[in-house]
């Protein structure tokens, strides 16, 4: 099917059933159908680049009628332009009773691909259920994922000796923003950035609040690592304010007591960022193209990177 050209990689197709991880996605009872489908689609897209076994746990609406664990198998083969781009992914969709979590962990364990890491994504599972019923999943997963843009509970409260294993998709989603801000600010001397800095304001729509929280945490870490910051008498605070602006998404404003300025504002569609800087005697303005990561890339970032 893919006859190679002379000198190209024309060896015969090898086995295509790749697998490098297990991904368990646990969907909560209050998840709207469209949202569940979006999560499922994200997982399938993700495994096209990172082949793995997906297990999706869907709570039944009628637990009294569920006598056994029901399951469906979804299988899809992705065929690209060359033999190297063919891979197949499988998703096992299990219907379970939220009232009977005891057998769930054992039942799921037999479906996992052995010796490969397990990642667990809680989607609209109340934190109290995670703590009381599903800690086994937490203990046996290399990372636990949640999305603070959706969840109202603070998943960082999950008891675990390794808090860094709990990863927020909102944090991963902010990677292009952090990269954009970081690339610009890293061209200025660090002490110049904090000279006269009185505060940082993050402005956003209400729906972006969780993303802004992650961004503020990152900015705080960066400030703390800046030479001279610890000696500042009045440490600049970081505030998040809700606002509605037809032109802008998230906006970051550094406030100074001197003539310095720094601002970074995302366009409404997220494709551009407008920056303005007067820092350390240097003045510039930019319109930078931003490329938001698609959901499967965000998932990959949360699973494989960061600490």
């Amino acid at each position, binding site marked *: 099917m893919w006859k190679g050209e*002379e*000198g190209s*990689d*024309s*060896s*015969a197709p*090898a*086995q*295509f059933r*790749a*697998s*490098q991880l297990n991904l368990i996605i646990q969907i909560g009872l209050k998840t709207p159908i469209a949202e569940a489908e979006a999560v499922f689609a994200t997982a399938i897209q993700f495994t*096209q*680049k*990172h*082949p793995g076994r997906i297990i999706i746990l869907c709570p039944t609406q009628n637990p009294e009628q569920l006598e056994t664990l029901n399951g469906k198998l979804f299988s899809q083969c992705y065929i*690209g*332009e060359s033999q*190297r*781009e063919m*891979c197949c992914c499988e998703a096992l969709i299990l219907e379970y009773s939220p009232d009977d979590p005891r057998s769930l962990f054992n039942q799921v364990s037999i479906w996992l691909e052995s010796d490969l890491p397990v990642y667990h994504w809680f989607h609209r599972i109340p934190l109290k259920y995670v703590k009381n019923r599903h800690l086994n999943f937490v203990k046996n997963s290399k990372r636990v994922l949640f999305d603070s843009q959706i969840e109202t509970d603070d998943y960082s409260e999950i008891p675990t000796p390794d808090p860094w294993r709990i990863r927020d998709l909102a944090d991963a989603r902010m*990677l*292009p923003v*952090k*990269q*954009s*801000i*970081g*690339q*610009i*600010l*890293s*061209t*200025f*001397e*660090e002490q*110049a*950035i904090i000279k006269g800095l009185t505060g940082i304001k993050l402005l956003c729509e209400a729906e972006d609040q969780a993303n802004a929280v992650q961004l503020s945490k*990152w900015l705080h*870490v*960066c*400030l703390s*690592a*800046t*030479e001279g910051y610890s000696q500042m008498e009045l440490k600049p605070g970081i505030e998040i304010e809700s606002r509605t602006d037809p032109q802008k998404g998230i906006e970051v404003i550094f406030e100074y007591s001197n003539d310095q300025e720094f601002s970074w504002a995302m366009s409404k569609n997220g*494709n551009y960022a407008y920056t303005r800087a007067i*820092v*350390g*005697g*240097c*003045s*510039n*303005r*930019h319109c*930078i*193209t931003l*490329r938001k*990561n698609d959901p499967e890339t965000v998932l990959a970032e949360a699973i494989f*990177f*960061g600490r």
Partner: protein
Amino acid sequence: MVSSSSLSTMSNSARHPFLTGLSKHRGAQPTILVIFGASGDLTRRKLIPALYNLGVDNLLPSDFKFIGFGRKIIPNEKFREFSKDSIEQFSRRSPEKDVWSRIEPNIEYHPGNYDDLAAFEALHKRIHDIEKEHERQFQLLFYISTPPGVFEPIISNLGASKLSRHGQSSGLKPKVVIEKPFGRDLDTAKSLNQTIRNQFDEDQVYRIDHYLGKETVQDLLVQRFANAIFEPIWNREYVSSVQITVAEQLGVGSRAGYYDQSGALRDMIQNHTMQLLSLTAMEPPVSLDPESIRDEKVKVLKAIQPLDLKKDAGDAVRAQYREGLIEGKRVPGYKEEQDVPIGSSTESYAALRLFINNWRWKGVPFYLRSGKRMARRVSEIAIQFKRPPGILFSEGDRFDLSHNVMVIQVQPDEGVTLLLNSKIPGLETRTQPVKMHFNYSTTYGSNTPEAYERLILDAMIGDSTLFIRGDETEESWRIITPVLDYWKNCGQRGLETYASGSWGPLAAERLLWDLRHEWRRPSN
């Protein structure tokens, strides 16, 4: 103008605080990349697609400009079309409109001769203009992708035009990436290094060997040092021999004019094969920082003993391909190829037997071979282990015991294979070799970056791990140059031939006979 005091100096060990939490590959400084040889084959097939894919992955710096520099006069629009075509033809991922629309406006072309200082001064002025437009300073990355004959004028003119010192006062030292071949022998390599040192510091220089950008080559250090099971047996007590093969099916084609000046020893063995050897044989570095790794590579090259060049029993064999069959089609021999001079004694195949005089490898032969028009295209490292003591399973008619072999396949089908002996199912105990195989594409999917993507990005962020240091390239030439000189003096004497589509000349088998080894025949 941008204030020079507004820029921070970044070293590998002291990252800017506002890059906290971002991998080093996400912190590339604003960069102007100037490619010399912009309309050439390498730029078209590899470099531009690599830039595009970096753009897809959001890894290009927030401010990025690409300037093609070449002798032809090409309008900017035409050069952008050329770039777009190259992406459409050669990118590993299909072109996306929004990614291209971001990159396209930042591409321009600057015509000029490589020996024309005025052209370089005009380039410098253009760079100043770009910085003024953007009100910021850019890191300059010069990529020399030209025939080797113009390396020195380009480097000299980068110095004379002060491009090599642009931005230095603000901590953004320009960098220069140089493609192989790096010299023709030890003297020319030293001379080139000196020319470079006159204009650039060593930490500004990135000598590229694209093999180092391949995933399996990078994986070699992980395989060796991230797994406890290999290092204890990676030495003369357990290893019988190491074979490194870089074989091509292609002939010289339209490149005979260049190739005939070079030959297999210069074209492949001095660089790619020696890199594979040094990574296979080096001692564990004290850390993963670039200098620690490169120190160990240089150390092992220094321990390679000079080759014995006796005519019939020496350590080197050379040959030219003659006509034969490649994939069922008849192909001409080297001497019948277009532009090959009559009476050419250039080798299209070379094989060496090397010994490393250190505690780890004393007495273990390293067999290196590379050639064109061989049976298949393959690059691999095969570590053959000694047989177990003949206590159990020693009856040859019942037990077909193979050497354990670990094969690291660099291309195609990157992966690792381990050959073990196993029992054949049945009532009797009989053995047979079996393969345990790990294949990159079927384990990780198809998302592995191309070598040049990794290398260009590493040059941008200042990570020199996958580039070759000046002393490293000189050590490699120290080993190879006496062979070149000897062959040059011999002329046609000792030049063997081999049929196209074969694994090389019979004379190459002689290198392995003494120790009762055999050349591998790598299969799919």
